[in-house]
Structures are given as C-alpha cells and as structure tokens.
C-alpha cells in the first residue's frame, strides 16, 4: 500500500534535517503503529506524506500503490486515498462543518470520476456516521473545529475519515485529549473501517489506544529514523520501560 524508502527531509526555512532515512512498508489490510520520543519526527513524517509546505525531501521516495505521491498536490494525494487525522486539527471560522464535509467528499468523488452525492444522500450518511461518534447536529452546523473541545476535534477528524473512506489512514496522536469513553468511540470508528484493502498508520505515545486498535506491527522512531520494528509486544515494552533501553541499544 504505502512504501517509504530512505526518506530524508529537511525544513525549507532553516537548514535542519528532521527525517534521516525512514523506511516503512505498510501492507494492505494492516495496522502499523509508530511510537517514539517527542520531537523524533513522527508528525513531520505524516505532514510530508500528506503534502504540507515547508519541507524539502532531499532523498528517498514514498509511493502509494506504486504511485509516487511526493510530487502530488495535497488534494491529489487525498483523492488517491491518503488521509491524515491531524495531531492538531485546524479551526476554520466561517466555514460550516457540513459544508466542509460535503465539499471534500464531492471534490474527491469528482477527482475520481464518480458522481457527486446528492444533498439528501449526503445528509443521511453524515447523520448516521456522526451518531456513531456521538457528534451532535450542533457540531455539524458549527464552523469547522471552532470552539470544539480537544476531544471533539479528534472525533471530528474520525468523522471526516469515515466519510472520505480513504485507503491509507494516518492517525497522528488521535488519542490525545480523548476521555476513556471517547477513546472507545474513536477506536470503534477506526475498527469499523478496518478491512483488507485499507491500511492504518497509528502514531501514539500510549499503549492504551493500541489495546483498542490492535496493531500488526509496531515501529519505534527516534531522531528521524525507525530504530526498531516488532510486534505488539514492542509497545508494551515502551509502556513499561520507556525509550532509554531502546535508545541505548542503538548507540
């Protein structure tokens, strides 16, 4: 599904290298998790993959089902099936959440040569999915993320993912800011989407999320590199011992 080879990324503004040769092979139908100390480059990886400005790829490649995505515009990557649930979802005053969702869904359908959803059909789908995530009608009407609590913003990210049905989902600390119940809702939302043609890359600091969304593979990122990969037990190790041992192993 998503193949990342020797990815080196620097900041455009300053001469600072953040990703120093990332390699990841994410197969269809699998859930991969990335853990790693603060500042190790996890969000940077997610931004670079989704096409945010400000980064320069100095070496390496990334492809989605064989297609080089690094040259694509962000909207093209989205239409190709890539989705990032932001660590910090953006507030957009003046743009209604519903308008935003419908514009996004229809833009992607159009880009893929599919019919646009009628207003009625769209409404039906959105209402059902919002209900599953306990997002009420008021939140759908309000401007995108404006005045949403931290947890509400994260649930809104998952609603977008559920509506857009991307094949490659990157979740950047979607668990942060969620209460115990919301964590369950969000995990259910994610698990409902799990299927053999869809891949997840879950960035998290805590084992708790991985109790709900069981990963197939866990990677540890440190200083811009994947320093270790393993099964779910690797996350437990981090939970119990922190990163000190792993980092020492590498040194």
């Amino acid at each position, binding site marked *: 599904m998503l193949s990342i080879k020797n990815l080196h990324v620097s900041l455009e503004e300053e001469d600072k290298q953040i990703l120093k040769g990332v390699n990841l092979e994410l197969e269809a139908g699998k859930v991969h998790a990335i853990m790693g100390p603060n500042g190790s480059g996890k969000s940077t990886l997610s931004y670079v993959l989704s096409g945010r400005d400000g980064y320069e790829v100095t070496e390496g490649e990334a492809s989605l089902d064989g297609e080089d995505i690094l040259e694509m515009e962000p909207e093209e990557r989205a239409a190709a099936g890539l989705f990032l649930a932001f660590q910090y979802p953006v507030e957009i005053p*003046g743009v209604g959440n519903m308008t935003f969702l419908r514009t996004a869904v229809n833009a992607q359908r159009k880009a893929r040569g599919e019919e646009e959803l009628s207003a009625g059909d769209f409404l039906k789908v959105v209402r059902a999915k919002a209900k599953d995530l306990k997002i009420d009608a008021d939140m759908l009407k309000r401007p995108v993320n404006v005045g949403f609590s931290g947890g509400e913003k994260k649930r809104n990210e998952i609603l977008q993912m559920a509506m*857009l049905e991307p094949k490659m989902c990157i979740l950047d600390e979607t668990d942060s800011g969620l209460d115990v119940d919301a964590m369950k809702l969000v995990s259910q939302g994610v698990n409902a989407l799990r299927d053999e043609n869809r891949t997840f890359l879950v960035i998290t600091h805590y084992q708790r999320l991985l109790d709900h969304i069981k990963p197939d593979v866990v990677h540890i990122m440190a200083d811009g590199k994947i320093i270790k990969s393993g099964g779910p037990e690797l996350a437990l190790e981090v939970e119990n011992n922190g990163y000190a041992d792993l980092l020492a192993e590498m040194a």
Partner: protein
Amino acid sequence: MALPKAKQDLTEATLSALPAPFDGAWAKAAQDEARVRLAALGMPVRRDEYWKFTNPAAYTTEAAEFATSTDTLDVFDAAKPLTITFVDGVLDADASDDMMLEGVTIETLVDAADVDLHWAKGLYGVLENAANTAPAKDGAALYRSVPRPLAALNTAAARDGLVIRVSGAASRPIRISYRSNGGDAMIHHVIKVDEGASLTLLEEGTAGARSNVMLEVDIADKAAFHHLRMQEPVADRHTLTNTFARLGNESTFKSFGLTAQGVLTRNETIMELTGDDAVAHVAGACLGDGNVHHDDTVYITHDAVNCESRQVFKKVLRNGAVGVFQGKILVQPHAQKTDGYQISQSLLLDDDSQFLAKPELEIYADDVACSHGSTSGAIDEAALFYLRSRGVPHAEAINLLTLSFLAEALEEIDDEALAEMVQTRLEQWLRA
C-alpha cells in the same frame, strides 16, 4: 475663500456643462442652490484629503468607454419585489411594475418636481446640504463638515429618480434595477419613512458607464429602513453612490452592499443619528480581482443619546486590486451612551494588492463605548492545507476561505431569505 486654480477651472467647466434644472418651482430652487453650493465647495481633486486614496478624476472628467452590462438583474426575484427600472439614468416605465404598493406612495422625481409644495421639497438636497455646510451643534464649531461636492453635483444635475413616501409597513420590498448602454447617469432618490413605518429597498445593476446615484433617506421615530445593494462585476464601470440618512428616535437604518469588480467604485454613506436610541448599521463586502479600485467611505455623526452605530467592511483583493476604507464616527458632546463599532478588514490574496484604511474616532462625549479595528491579512496557510488535505482543490479551498472571511459582513443582513439570495450570487460571482 478662493479655490485653487485647478479646482476652480474644473468647477467652472463642470458648472457650465450642467443641464438646465427642473422646471417646477421647488425643484428648480433646490437645483439652483446646489449649483451655488458646488461653486463654493469646488469639484474634488486628487489633492483633497477626502480623496487621498481614490483619484476622483474619473468622476470629474470624461468617462471611459463601457461594455454594456450583461448580468441579469435577478438576484432578488424570489423576494417578489416591486421593481422599477432605470435605463441610462431615466425611468423605463415599460420595464417597471406599476408604482402601487400598500403603505407606500412612489413617484418619479420628474413628476414630483412639477408639483408645487411637494413634501419632497423638504428632503431633496436637504440632507446633502446639511452634511456639506451645517455647523456643529451646541454652538461650538467642533468639526468642519467634509466637502462632498459630487453629492452637491448630483443634487444640481440629477435628471430622474424616485420619490418614495412610506406611511406603513411596506408589504414587499422595492427593487430599483439599473441598466446601462454606456454614458453617464445621475440619479437622485429621496425616501421618507414616516413614524413607525418600514421599507426594504433593493438595488441591483449598473446605472451607467459612469454613474452617480444618490439616496436621501429620512427615517422618522420608530421607523425602519433596510437596504441591500448589489454592484455587479462589470469591468468598465465607474460607480459612485452617495447615501445620506437621518435617523429619528428609536429608528433603524441597516444597509449592506456587495460589490464585485468594477474599475472604480466609491460608496459613501453619511448618517446623522438625531433621535435617541437609534440604530445605524452599514456593511459591505467586496471582491476585487485585477484592475479594481473599491472605496467605502462612511461618516456617522452621533447627535443623540444612547444610539448604536456599526460599520463592518470586508474586502478580498488580488492581482493588483486596491481597497480603500475611510470610516469616521463623530460623537457630539451630548451624545452620551453612544455605542459605536467599526471594523474594516482586507484579505490580500497576493502581494500585488493593497488595502488603505483610515479609521477615525472623534469623540466629545465622556460616557461612550466606541471601538474600531482595521486589519490586512493573507490567507491562513494552515487552514488552506487542512482543506486541501481533505481533497478540496486549491482554488476551491481559497474560495471557501474567502467566503468565510466575508461571512461577518454578510451576517449583517437581518432578513435570512435575502441574505441567502445575496450569498448565492456572491458564490456565483466568486466562482465565475
């Protein structure tokens, strides 16, 4: 005081080219007086402080050629307004509805001018005159009135317009549609809203290659006047509007204008709140792309107790478009408990465009709450990326952010149905 030579020459040339005034006694007198006023004020030139940001030459010398307006005038059809059409500055009866509306009498200025002792005598040119020449109240000359010679010119030279008297709640809006085949248009409407009465006035279209459209609105106690104006994307139009309003006790004036394109637009609103507890809101949204100069100039005088005024102006500019805002709130010494608010903002979509703002507060009362702000900003890159990451194409993402930027101005429209109509046309113009 003698006028500077260039101004003097321009003024004399303008005066000598004026058409003959109306025949009717009161109208002739009003137009003759306006000529005298214009001679004293002098035509505006670039050097004038009031025209610092907008070169008045296009309004005062020969107008450019003009491509005929093609936009259909149907923004407000769903509101089922009574429609009156002006083509090239004069009434087109064939393209107009019968001027019959419950609670309202509507005449043309041409007809009213022939009637002796018409009520319009007490309003035609009167608010313009007051704003151009009257001294400050309370004996103290606290401020000098700003000369508005192009309004005096309109009073002196208008050939047609509407004379509207509202005595009850108008059962539906009045729409004035303007069409042009090029050339000048000088139109002057006077509107008197009697105590407790209310009217919604809608204006659409392009009155001329070069147009000067004036509204004088007298709003009596507890009366309400709502106004929406759509200035369509006709590249070559030179549009000037002068709106004068006087507000009585507990009266309401609310005006919103949407402007798209136009090589030159200046919308002036001059309001005097003379009755206690009056509410005056004026708002505007502008889309400017390319060779566009758009100017909103507002002057609100608080002359009574416990009044509220509000100005909300938003402009989206790109490819060299220029936006201007001059907004003043003047609070007279006795105008205690004044609540004055003013915001002017531009969204600059590139480095070539500019926004020039001159917000002013002049306050002589001590118990008031007045605030103003003016900002110029670029597109929010984080929001833009967020939208694109969801698959919204770049251009459409910019459109969504543009609409969100303008939303605060459109929220000033009270009537939800009318607001929806404006919003729909805005989106069409934006995506054209």
